């Protein structure tokens, strides 16, 4: 089976992050993302899922540094690259959507110009042409009245609209890999569903691979074929998304699944007491010597083949 799989677009091997030379933040994380695949990283705060995304983007802040391991993107070693080469990839081939669009967007620049900037920098277009492309990009993320909205500043848009703008910027250059870090956590549930669906649709249509970082298994199930579970700086389990709920392998994953409040799980006349993670997961199961439990990728549906 595995020899039928294409070469991964992103390959992270034994990635270690720390402060100084000590490996304290990530203790050797390895995973692959295939072209066009949506891969989810789930975990609690402090598990290392966000810093993994930032390390791939090359956006780690000092004093946090990569202390070991490799990251290969389309066969090229990202960590061995010169800063200039990495800047060229960033925004063009690898793009990122952040959790808080208000802090990620420049408040003093119209959103049309912020999108157009991508075409000017990465495609060498002139501003007038780039602006036209920016309006098209806004249209593709289903922002109503894109012509008019292109002249708006970030504060004039709602949270959901701002996140659509972020997605437009990230997908402007049709990247091969999109990293989305909690892209809908700051949004209302009703808005969240629409933004997720939009992101999934656009990536599917373009064959963009996605690394979705989230604490919400529901969000990951919505979009990802493959999911990695992180705990305390380690990848503890990796599986196809459809199996992780029915057949979780790692005790930590079982604990995470059991402690979620789920709609429709409370019986009438009963108190809705929840299972706490510690009731399910023994301390020894969260230790350093637990291996990563990985099941091979299941058969994949190649969408759009023949269409």
């Amino acid at each position, binding site marked *: 089976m595995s020899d039928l799989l294409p070469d991964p677009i992103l390959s992270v091997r034994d990635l270690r992050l720390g402060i100084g030379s000590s490996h304290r933040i990530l203790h050797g994380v390895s995973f692959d993302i295939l072209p066009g695949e949506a891969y989810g990283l789930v975990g609690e*705060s402090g598990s290392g899922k966000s810093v993994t995304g930032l390390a791939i983007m090359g956006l780690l802040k000092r004093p946090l540094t990569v202390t070991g391991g490799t990251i290969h993107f389309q066969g090229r070693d990202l960590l061995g690259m010169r800063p200039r080469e990495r800047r060229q990839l960033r925004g063009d081939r690898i793009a990122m959507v952040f959790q808080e669009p208000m802090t990620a967007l420049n408040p003093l620049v119209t959103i049309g110009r912020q999108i157009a900037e991508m075409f000017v920098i990465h495609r060498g277009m002139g501003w007038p042409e780039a602006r036209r492309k920016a309006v098209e990009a806004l249209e593709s993320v289903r922002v109503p009245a894109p012509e008019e909205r292109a002249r708006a500043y970030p504060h004039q848009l709602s949270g959901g609209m701002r996140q659509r703008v972020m997605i437009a910027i990230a997908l402007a250059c049709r990247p091969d890999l999109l990293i989305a870090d909690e892209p809908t956590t700051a949004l209302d549930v009703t808005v969240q569903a629409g933004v997720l669906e939009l992101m999934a649709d656009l990536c599917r249509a373009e064959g963009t691979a996605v690394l979705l970082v989230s*604490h919400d298994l529901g969000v990951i199930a*919505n979009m990802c074929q493959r999911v990695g579970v992180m705990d305390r700086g380690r990848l503890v389990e990796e599986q196809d*998304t459809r199996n992780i*709920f029915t057949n979780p392998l790692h005790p930590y994953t079982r604990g995470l699944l059991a402690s979620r409040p789920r709609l429709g*799980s409370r019986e009438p006349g009963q108190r809705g007491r929840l299972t706490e*993670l510690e009731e399910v997961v023994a301390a020894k199961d969260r230790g350093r010597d637990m291996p990563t439990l990985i099941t091979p990728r299941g058969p994949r549906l190649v969408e759009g083949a023949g269409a």
Partner: protein
Amino acid sequence: MSVPLLEIRDLTVHFNLPRRTPLGPRRILRAVEGVSLTLNEGECLSIVGESGCGKSTTALTVMGLQEPTEGQVLYQGKPLNGPGAPGRKERARIAQMVFQDPYASLNPRQTIGSTLMSQLKLHGLASGSEAQDRVAAMLARVGLQADHAKRFPHEFSGGQRQRIGIARALMLNPRILVLDEPVSALDVSIQAQIINLLMDLQETLKLSYIMISHDLSVVEHVSDRVAVMYYGRVVEEGDWHSVFSRPTHPYTRRLIGSVPDAEAILTGARGVPEGAAIPAGRSFSPDISTRPDPSLPPEASMLVPIGPDHRVRLAD
């Protein structure tokens, strides 16, 4: 019929917005429009809705932090606002609030002990070693240790800080806690601990809760009654089981349908339970296919019973 512990009667809160031009028309934001809710002793009433629907404004009015434009909040049948209303100190012993982000609501330069103790001193309830004992007892009650009193807020994790936020709210033995998104800033596993703690405290201390939340799965677990708000109005309200098993207003249905439930997505068993029937010839209010303008008066409508303890808003 017995008097409910707390009653919100026809609450309306309007905010004046700045004029667009110096001589332009006055603009009003209708944050809350004619909301009536009751909280019975020992119950948890949850108010759900998206940001801007007026749920937090309603809660602030209960706390006395926002003056109502019209309407009343009654505690044991006596009004909490207007002439003859209890003063701030008295009010502080009726209802207390637990905030979403406990770190932002704790003084970073005071130890936890002195934060908790200051209330006892201010209200003249205890001082010296007795106050210290009461702080230690409260910390134990929320699952912390007595020597945590010597520490500062930054020395605690998110879950511990929320425990401190709960301890702070309980120091004066209030009857009501207003919980404003009490777990939405916390990790899933910590959420479960805090929800369980809140339910245990409710039982042992005979507390009543008003919970503001946008997380429907948490609401379903904790609540006795649920009110769904949309653009300043309650659009559906009733017993938790009734609302969740027969969500009837299109907005409630949309909310429940938006919860990303992993298993349901993967098995394709995703669906919202069937709603109750409404009287023939009547329609839901407001129409959720268009966005109501919060500066205009809402259309005439009323809450109509559709079950034993279940009401939904229909156009008049």
